[in-house]
């Protein structure tokens, strides 16, 4: 057995098993995030939400997925067929491969690489391609407007996300996500870095094109923005990608600021609960906040969105980066 696992075929088999162990729970979670969003929005608007398919509507996501898959695929005549089909695949692939480095419990990551944070940052900065290619390949005005908006928006907010991540790295002293979580054993980073925590979460909303920054979709003005021409599988994949990105950004917030799989206090009742449960609870909390924000805030105007990114978040995160670096240097708390 050991000889087989050490062989190239065995290595590939291990990698496939790791990937499945991450992806299957993730996809089920994504299905239920769509359900949770409808339920939570319904509760906030004094409605019932899905309640017909299965108990409490629990089978609704699967019914929706099946329905979407068996509808007729429509590709617009003027569209660039290859890129049109490629765009949703890119979106969903990027949303899924980012999970390779997420540590769900102590050391539980499919790939425990040294530059985990950079990998996540790189993958999330690629998310814009699915949208921009979809917008261009659709050969439609609304789709193209949505794509242009999202290109500017996602590039803008990435900058402040980058500075926030650098600030966290200063406290953690490592690019490895496991090490970052271990560095939060005594104090979770959202306490010393509270303003950065807020900036990161709001930028995460913008990065995932969620309300109140959902201008690339803008149902009420661009009808559905970049994916207006998509139906069936393409639409389903965009939907899947969007929700997988929400879960990913929530997990990133939990890892960078809320101590990942660490219990809140290292004392008896908290340490009985395994780390993976803490991680899921924290991620679920941020997913809930994503939905809560959508139910609460109206859409931003585009110039105000740009102003917030470049004139508020960028100077603030730069300032806080310098303050943090100075503080760590002067107090000698800089991790070795």
């Amino acid at each position, binding site marked *: 057995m050991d000889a087989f696992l050490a062989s*190239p075929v065995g*290595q*590939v088999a291990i990698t496939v098993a790791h990937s499945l162990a991450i992806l299957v729970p993730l996809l089920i979670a994504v299905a239920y995030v769509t359900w949770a969003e409808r339920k939570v929005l319904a509760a906030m608007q004094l409605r019932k939400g899905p309640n017909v398919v299965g108990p409490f509507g629990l089978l609704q996501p699967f019914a929706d997925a099946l329905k979407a898959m068996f509808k007729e695929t429509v590709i617009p005549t003027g569209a660039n067929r290859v*890129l049109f089909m490629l765009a949703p695949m890119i979106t969903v692939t990027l949303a899924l491969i980012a999970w390779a480095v997420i540590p769900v419990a102590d050391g539980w990551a499919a790939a425990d*690489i*040294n*530059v985990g944070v*950079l*990998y996540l*940052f*790189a993958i999330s*900065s*690629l998310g*814009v*391609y699915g949208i*921009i*290619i979809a917008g*261009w390949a659709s050969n439609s005005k609304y789709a*193209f407007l949505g*794509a*242009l908006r999202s*290109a*500017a928006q996602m*590039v803008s907010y*990435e900058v402040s996300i980058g500075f926030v991540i650098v600030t966290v790295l200063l406290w953690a002293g490592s*690019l490895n996500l496991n090490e970052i979580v271990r560095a939060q054993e005594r104090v979770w980073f959202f306490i010393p870095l509270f303003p950065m925590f807020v900036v990161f979460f709001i930028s995460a909303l913008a990065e995932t094109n969620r309300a109140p920054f959902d201008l690339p979709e803008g149902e009420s003005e661009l009808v559905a923005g970049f994916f207006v021409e998509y139906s069936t599988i393409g639409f389903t994949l965009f939907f899947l990608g969007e929700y997988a990105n929400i879960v990913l950004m929530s997990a990133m917030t939990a890892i960078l600021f809320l101590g990942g799989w660490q219990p809140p206090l290292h004392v008896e009742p908290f340490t009985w609960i395994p780390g993976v449960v803490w991680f899921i609870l924290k991620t679920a909390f941020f997913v809930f906040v994503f939905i809560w924000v959508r139910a609460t805030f109206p859409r931003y105007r585009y*110039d105000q969105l740009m*102003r917030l990114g470049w004139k508020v978040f960028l100077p603030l995160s730069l300032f806080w980066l310098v303050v943090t670096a100075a503080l760590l240097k002067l107090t000698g708390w800089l991790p070795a």
Partner: protein
Amino acid sequence: MLAAVAFYAFSAVLIASAAMVVVARNPVHSVLFLILAFFNAAGLMLIAGGEFLAMILVIVYVGAVAVLFLFVVMMLDVDFARMREGFQRYAPVGALVGGVLLVELLFVLGSWRFAPEAPGLRLSPNPGATVGNTEALARILYTDNVLLFQAAGVILLVAMIGAIVLTLRERPGTRRQVIAAQVARAPAETVVLRQVPIGAGLKNIGILRPPPAAEEREALSEPERHGHGGGHH
């Protein structure tokens, strides 16, 4: 063995997509092939152990620079027939420039002398082998070469300021939103409560705008008598 397979796969795709960048007729396809080339270059760096460089290549070039390329190229209204028309005419010039560059590169390569310790360090991204690639780079950049590193930063800053200066223009006649002024407005400065006497008309009391000065009021009251009360504009 896996690493060898990955190396040849990445290299083959890299070269093929680099060729496609030049050959592709549609400029959007060219940019997308360029992105594919960047990706495979990052993969090659990962295999060589340069994990930090690989990630930075993806973040900076694919995540930011190529997005802006794509952004610009998509906005262009390119006439493909006319582009091909010029190919015959410009091909000799292009070939000449390419040829000169190639000869120059060959000269450089021929007269290049390696430092004695360089061949041993080739393709070793962490020379000490005790730390990762990221830390190895940081130890070189922030110690021995810190001045060069800072100089590179200053040059980029100057370029950035230059780009802003070239494109920034104050457009007269546009009403810009001053958010600080909006937020600083208090009800006391903007809202006036008035008791309107019955039959007094709105204009003389000054609702909707500050009451006019005494001589102005004289001029204003003239049309008022002819029954124009109410509307302001």
